[in-house]
């Protein structure tokens, strides 16, 4: 820039991934693998079957993944369902950033894409898909976001991991694995689409 910096510019937008203090240099971290790649694959296959069973097929289904990792999980479940039923289930993504209740507590987050299938969600059985179910606040935001788009017949929730510690009356219909954790721990979900490999691990900072 040949122009002088005239004003104070304090911060840029933080990336969408949550900033984990355990990633700071110089801290010791205990890590244990909770789900291997094979475990994840089996869990997703089971969830896919459960979704079909509960909804008696795939005719009225819409899958909506919550970015970033929920969106990839939704795409995988869609592929698995196609393998079982031979039908393409309308699949999309639902970004909930603009509906969060903790926006004031953090630096601004990047907004991720929302792609609603052309068939819409009106009168459909919508399955929300996320990687980790924790406080339940993301799902509350997702319900608000859905309400702005239309009125599904039912909304169901699938999560790869349920780690407990709910702060709102929200429950998953389909769970890959229940992981009892303490609040001091963090759950890391890695997916091959973005992280190069599939793995769920529990991490805890050494005391």
């Amino acid at each position, binding site marked *: 820039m040949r122009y002088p910096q005239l004003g104070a510019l304090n911060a840029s937008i933080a990336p969408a991934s949550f900033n984990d203090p355990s990633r700071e240099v110089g801290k010791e971290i205990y890590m244990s693998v909770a789900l291997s790649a094979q475990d994840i694959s089996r869990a997703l296959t089971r969830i896919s079957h459960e979704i079909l069973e509960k909804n008696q097929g795939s005719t009225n289904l819409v899958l909506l993944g919550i970015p970033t990792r929920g969106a990839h999980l939704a795409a995988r479940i869609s592929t698995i369902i196609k393998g079982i039923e031979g039908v393409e289930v309308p699949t999309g993504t639902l970004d909930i950033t*603009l509906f969060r209740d903790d926006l004031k507590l953090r630096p601004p987050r990047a907004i991720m894409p929302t792609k609603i299938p052309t068939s819409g969600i009106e009168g459909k059985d919508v399955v929300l898909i996320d990687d980790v179910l924790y406080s339940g606040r993301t799902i509350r935001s997702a319900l608000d976001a859905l309400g702005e788009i239309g009125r599904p017949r039912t909304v169901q929730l699938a999560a790869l991991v349920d780690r407990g510690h709910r702060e709102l009356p929200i429950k998953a219909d389909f769970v890959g694995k229940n992981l009892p954790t303490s609040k001091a721990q963090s759950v890391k979900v890695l997916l091959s689409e973005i992280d190069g490999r599939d793995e769920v691990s529990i991490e805890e900072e050494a005391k």
Partner: protein
Amino acid sequence: MRHLLSIADLNKSEAISILDTAFELARVSDGAVKKLPTLRGRTIVNLFAEDSTRTRISFEAAAKRLSADVINFSAKGSSLSKGESLKDTAMTLQAMGADAVVIRHSASGAAQRLADNQWMSGSVVNAGDGTHEHPSQALLDAFTIRKHLGMGGSDLSGLSVAIVGDVLHSRVARSNVLLLSLLGAKVTLVAPPTLIPIGIENWPASVSYDFDSVIPHVDVVMMLRVQQERMTDLFFPNAREYSRYFGLNAERMAAMNSGAIVMHPGPMNRGLEISAEVADSARSVITEQVTNGVSVRMAILYVLLAGGALEAGSN
């Protein structure tokens, strides 16, 4: 980021992140959702000490789509017309709890003055200050160019833009030169020598006095309004001569590249810098600029206001 005063304050990744945010927000506006709860409970004051149609309405629409409360405040009909100082006005706004002030003022540097002094704690958005800058216009222009001509990348590298007309009085030109060059585009300013500001050699742009020789080589022709209200001198002999040498008419438009687009920040002087035929042609993206303005201003308000307390400590 607390204020948006000048494009010179932005770095490339910040500029791109505003454009990306605007892109996602535009998709929201296109869909069924016209209202987002994101800025519920925030108060945004539009302080317009100079006339404006597009910018004020656009900021108002953007704030309302994000559920913020909007207070409109123009010089006419307020105590500004009784001679109240900017400081007293700012302190009044502070007392009313404004989270952000969008300011349009005829004095260059008015927004900077509002932000630098401790008169108020909210964010300041420059919506045009004198002949200095108009950053939100430049961002919406960059957004429009990227949407039409972007080569898949996030910036504008490889594109060539001509900014034509009253560069001297144009805050739009200043902001656009900074932003478009920051994003990698090649910018050429075209104007009569009398309407080229002093110090142009320090701008990241080249200068030409011959519109016809520039036209075939650019992807974007951005026309500027001849700002008669700011002209205190005789800058060109008469309107007809200006129009002949620097106006965009059908004949010049025919010489443009096949995919090239015509832009104008508005309001247009039809028949002076742009002919009605060109303004209403298929190449013209002038009304689309207005549409995109709402999304880009939503993104600006989101970036400045959605984050909270932690932000002050970070970075």
